[in-house]
């Protein structure tokens, strides 16, 4: 499924914004960047649906909206079912000659809580049924909208308000659920990971997801300065560091065939470029408690899981 679509920063600048300025996202918001990038991949008319979460809240408050495309939010756990409904209605109306468009792309946006946790049933069901839509997971690794509570997407050792850095238990005990692999296992045509730091890679992947016939899943890492505890100017740097340390490798799986994307492929070819996770952790306040003699072993645990998952990914990509 090689997309013939060409895209440059000039095109990016020229394309009208459909996620418009005036929204109320925090300074340095990673998800807001992800939204702009995804929508720059539009190839025609779009209908979007959004799970409850930060981005639903910041992009709308009646009577205001940041949306220049038709958009609906209904609840937290059902965005994939909403996308299924929109896609099915479009199909039915087209069949009856009541749709004025040749094709309308459907995009579902959800955060990590709405995807890893409460929304996974609806997502799995929609993937199994094969609805033609792009699901965008903007992963800021906790329930940021409700005040930084841990989710299935929160990494090991991270402080959140429900996995506090306590005297006995230093942050989140469990590991991040490999959600994108779970989606590959659904045997859907397109799954990819992306980071807002690599904007061209992200926009291209969003486009490929739209072009795929059937369900497509885009897992976009989108740092949150409030929840990750870092200066608002560092969002893109941290999103880049996640890739450079292999905490969040970039890859795509077309029809289940894994392939590394350029920023991660470079590291696979030149392993000396792989940076230690410490570099990624030390700039974020949510990991500050690990930099103590008492808990520094957790950093080793994190390094080990990252190495293990990286090795497994290389194997899947045929790079070992």
């Amino acid at each position, binding site marked *: 499924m090689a997309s013939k679509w060409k895209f440059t920063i000039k095109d990016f600048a020229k394309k009208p914004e459909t996620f418009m300025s005036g929204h109320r996202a925090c300074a340095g918001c990673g998800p807001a960047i992800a939204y702009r990038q995804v929508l720059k991949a539009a190839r025609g008319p779009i209908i979007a649906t959004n799970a409850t979460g930060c981005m639903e809240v910041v992009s709308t408050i009646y009577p*205001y*909206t940041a949306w220049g495309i*038709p958009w*609906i939010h209904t609840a937290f756990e059902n965005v994939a079912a*909403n996308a299924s*409904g*929109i896609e*099915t209605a479009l199909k039915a109306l087209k069949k009856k000659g009541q749709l004025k468009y040749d094709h309308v792309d459907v995009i579902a946006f959800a955060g990590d809580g709405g995807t890893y946790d409460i929304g996974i049933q609806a997502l*799995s*069901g929609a993937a199994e049924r094969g609805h033609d839509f792009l699901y965008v997971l903007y992963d800021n690794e906790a329930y940021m909208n409700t005040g930084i509570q841990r989710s299935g997407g929160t990494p090991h050792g991270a402080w959140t308000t429900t996995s506090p850095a306590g005297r006995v238990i230093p942050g989140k005990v469990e590991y991040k659920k490999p959600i994108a692999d779970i989606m590959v296992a659904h045997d859907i045509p397109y799954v990819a990971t992306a980071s807002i730091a690599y904007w061209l890679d992200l926009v291209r992947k969003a486009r490929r997801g739209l072009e795929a016939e059937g369900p497509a899943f885009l897992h976009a890492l989108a740092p949150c300065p409030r929840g990750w505890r870092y200066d608002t100017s560092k969002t893109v740097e941290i999103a880049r560091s996640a890739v450079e340390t292999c905490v969040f490798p970039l890859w795509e799986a077309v029809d289940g065939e894994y392939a590394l994307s350029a920023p991660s492929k470079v590291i696979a070819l030149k392993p000396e470029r792989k940076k230690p996770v410490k570099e990624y952790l030390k700039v974020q306040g949510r990991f500050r408690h690990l930099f103590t003699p008492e808990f520094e072993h957790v950093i080793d645990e994190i390094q080990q899981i990252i190495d293990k998952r990286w090795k497994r990914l290389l194997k899947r990509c045929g790079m070992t």
Partner: protein
Amino acid sequence: MAITKQNLRALNGDEAVAYAVKQSDVDVVAAYPITPQTIIVERFSEYVHNGEVNTEFVCTESEHSALSMSLAASATGARVFTASASAGLALMHEILYVTSGCRAPVVMAIANRALSAPINIHCDHSDSMVERDAGWIQIYVENSQEAYDSTLQAFRIAEHSDLLLPTMVMLDAFFLSHTLESVNILADETVRKFVGTRKIPLIRGHGGKLVPFKLDPENPITMGPLDLHDYYFEHKRQQEEAMQRASGIIKEIHDEYARISGRKYGNGLIEPYRLEDAEIATVCLGSTAGTTKTVVDQLRSKGIKAGLLRLRTYRPYPVEDIINALENVKAIAVMDRSHSFGAQGGPVFHEIRHVLYDASIHPPVVNYIYGLGGRDMPQSLIHEIYKDLQKILETKRVEKPVQFIGVRE
């Protein structure tokens, strides 16, 4: 319009609903199977797989997703139907409010079934009674013919541009859902003409421009935004205003349907039975009304002035009609097929007593909780209720305002 030619068929309640949906040119059906609603989705699957309908039919992975899909499909401009019961309806609870709040005119059939625990597949009204405040129109039917007729009417009611209120049609589990009856079916073209196609009303969109109220790339609107203390309240009041408008519209659509089918159910909101000069009367919903009518006839043949009031629409609640129907009755028994634990009586009882507060007289009103989990309500028990009412008339005293009937002590 004259009464049109009809075709008599043997159908159970579920099949009658499925047939009505088949004739209504529905765009999307999204559903999840649950006893005793299953026959609706099974029959409809057959229509789809035999090419008898032009509908997109989706079997979802849960009722929660079935209604979420229905809501989003409706917001995209499609005519949508779904069906559920019991635990399935309970799982939809959250999205019932979202559907009515988004003003998505989804039509849903409910085969009324008890809620767990203990798990039970048989009839009572607990499942839909707890959803009476969810902003949906609720129609309770007495037999399979009415299930068919009401499903056709439901599309007209829900999609009416002055309403845009999702509508539930309730039929009693097994007593109706699985029991074969003779059902008169209208011709396909008669139904097409009556139901018509869904018309999308225009609303003021961004910048005050008039745009269709649906998700349309040419005229983008934002649906389901965050809505806090400064506007939420007004939006909720608009839902109530639509409910107030609904009573008249339900009656109009019911009368229009009566002209082509020859079938009427009271005035569409309530169905009084031999109430004009009744001294004692019961109030009930659903299939129990059929049995009660027989009992009323038996009592009448003995010279006892008995009557029945069946509530057909429970939301909107037909306050004026109920007052007018019951005002001259001297003792009233309300039969509830669901219970509100700790509330001293069932929901129908509470609401009947509440409207009679505004009536010119205040007859004694008593409550019988009956038939939970599908327990049979035979004529003998209904006779007991009328006997109790006669005793109240004679003694002018109510001994037990609320009691369970047909239950082991």
